[in-house]
């Protein structure tokens, strides 16, 4: 009977190990990193830290927090407020939304000081916040949009308003200045007055989850894609939606615009351009893999990343200018400055890469332990 005991104990231990391996908080909230830039510094929210990297040379300026913790995990896009404050939320078991002050570095830890912390949310922060009129509109996976005063001076925040929207919120809100648009995983698009927090119109049923940021287009309409493999536009005055185009796969990333076309990708590996004025599809191309993140407009060209680890630059006619294979998988939307493209791949040899406008790699960054 002894071998049976040993066998049973071994199998039990193995089962515990395997189950543990797929359930640790970090694993539960594991996802692609969040990325932002103020033009001089790249902010990478990845794993236990938010890193500030000098865009000139790829050197780490600071990281927050100074020491990693299993309860804090970052995947949401950091957001840079007009005063330089960085707002970012944790997707770990510690559901904190924190504002950090990069101008106030603790010399002993070389880590920026927290301006304030907000701990009322009940679930993960997956999306970045929207900052409008000194208010933070922060979407949480608990289905609430929390409105927080950015400048009231308190170090421990309470929400000015908790707007319950139902389903998990994984998309950064957007605004046209008069309304805040929030898409949810439970298929809804909401429009909220940022002053009185009233809904402008009843939520629009998109028919599928919408994890991408809604776009306020050049025509004033709001464009949003969803898992129904469709992109619709919504008239913000009436709250009525119209089909713009159907795609081959689910639309994940939010659309972007160069003022003429609307650009977006799908999970079947297509990039689409739709003329905003006519509503007609201008062109579509098939890169080397699914397009999960949003494209970015850089001057006359459009830059986007594929899951296969490539970065593309295309012109407004859909002609590929260059393609650069960085390796790994790229889900995070690339961030562009006037002369740099910042990319945060997963499972690559580095955590961050910067390319110039011709697709040449300028530097890469890998965090040191």
């Amino acid at each position, binding site marked *: 009977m002894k071998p049976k005991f040993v066998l049973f104990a071994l199998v039990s231990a193995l089962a*515990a190990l395997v189950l543990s391996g797929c359930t640790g908080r970090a694993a*539960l909230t594991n996802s692609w990193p969040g990325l932002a830039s103020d033009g001089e510094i790249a902010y990478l929210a990845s794993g236990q830290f938010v890193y500030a990297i000098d865009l000139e040379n790829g050197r780490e300026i600071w990281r927050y927090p100074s020491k990693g913790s299993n309860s804090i995990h970052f995947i949401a896009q950091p957001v840079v407020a007009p005063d330089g404050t960085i707002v970012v939320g944790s997707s770990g078991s510690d559901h904190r939304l924190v504002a950090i002050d990069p101008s106030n570095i603790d010399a002993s830890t070389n880590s920026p000081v927290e301006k304030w912390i907000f701990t009322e949310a009940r679930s993960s922060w997956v999306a970045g916040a929207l900052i409008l009129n000194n208010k933070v509109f922060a979407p949480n996976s608990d289905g609430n949009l929390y409105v927080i005063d950015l400048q009231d001076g308190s170090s421990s925040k309470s929400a000015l308003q908790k707007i319950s929207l139902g389903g998990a919120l994984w998309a950064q809100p957007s605004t046209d200045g008069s309304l805040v648009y929030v898409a949810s995983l439970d298929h809804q698009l909401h429009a909220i007055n940022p002053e009185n927090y009233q809904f402008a119109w009843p939520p629009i049923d998109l*028919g599928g989850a919408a*994890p991408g940021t809604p776009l306020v287009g050049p025509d004033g309409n709001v464009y949003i894609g969803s898992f129904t493999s469709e992109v619709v536009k919504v008239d913000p005055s009436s709250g009525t939606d119209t089909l713009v185009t159907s795609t081959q796969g689910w639309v994940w990333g939010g659309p972007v615009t160069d003022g003429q076309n609307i650009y977006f990708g799908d999970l079947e590996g297509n990039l689409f351009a739709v003329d905003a004025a006519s509503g007609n599809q201008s062109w579509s191309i098939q890169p080397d893999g699914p397009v999960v993140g949003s494209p970015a407009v850089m001057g006359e060209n459009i830059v986007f990343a594929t899951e296969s680890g490539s970065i593309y630059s295309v012109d407004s006619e859909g002609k590929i200018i260059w393609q650069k294979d960085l390796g790994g998988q790229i889900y995070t939307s690339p961030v562009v400055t006037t002369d740099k493209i910042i990319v945060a791949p997963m499972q690559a040899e580095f955590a961050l890469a910067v390319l110039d406008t011709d697709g040449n790699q300028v530097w890469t960054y890998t965090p040191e332990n």
Partner: protein
Amino acid sequence: MWQTFIIQPFTNLLLWIYSLMANIPGAFGWAIILFTIVIRAITWPLNAQQLKGAQAMQELQNDKDWQAIQKKYAKDKEKLAQEQMRVYKEKGINPFGSCLPTLIQFPIIIGLYQAIIRALASAPLGLLQLARSVYPSLSVAALIPLNSHFLWMDLGQPESISIFGFNLPTLAIIVAITTYIQSKLTMPATANPGDQSAAMGKTMSIYMPLLLGYFALTFASGLSVYFITSNLLGIFQYAVTGRANWRNLLPGGDQQAKAKAK
């Protein structure tokens, strides 16, 4: 391979069941329960074989020949093992017949757990993996995100109920109790004090509830729903096949059973 043959089919089966009852409150919890019933039905012959094997091993412990060999070769382990194998062959008993079906449960538990976590997708990468796992014949775009709430639980998180500020892990307790009851019911009476099989069964009846209770305490409560449903179905199976030893549940019941066996 694990992905293709275990996680993907499990995830799709769960999603398919969920899609049939998406409008019912707590649909994902009901989907797990139905899934468990399906798995139990598929593994019914295996469980029956396990029961049969355990019974045969138990009867062997009371066999005169078996007891004689134990005494005769007590100091010669090699010879004892040879003789035991001879008896197994003669009586047509597979010594692992009661053990292997139990071991088969582990891949199911692990696969189900991974399927639950994948289906509930608590982060973007998980949702992307879910999108990739879904068979083309299954249209789930409208179903996502799955509603993870069932009764008072979030099936993607460990469960507890706050009572006077104390978080009581009710599901973990129910898992431990039902596992204990199930294992007790399957322990046949034996009159042989040196019966190693009975000793092992007794140890297991304590060890298994603790192990599964720990899993229920630590992991997503969807797994606990599986454990409880599976245990209740197991108890039902023992009862309908007439193999449940209800006396074992009573205080001193095993002593009475032993006396009866003598």
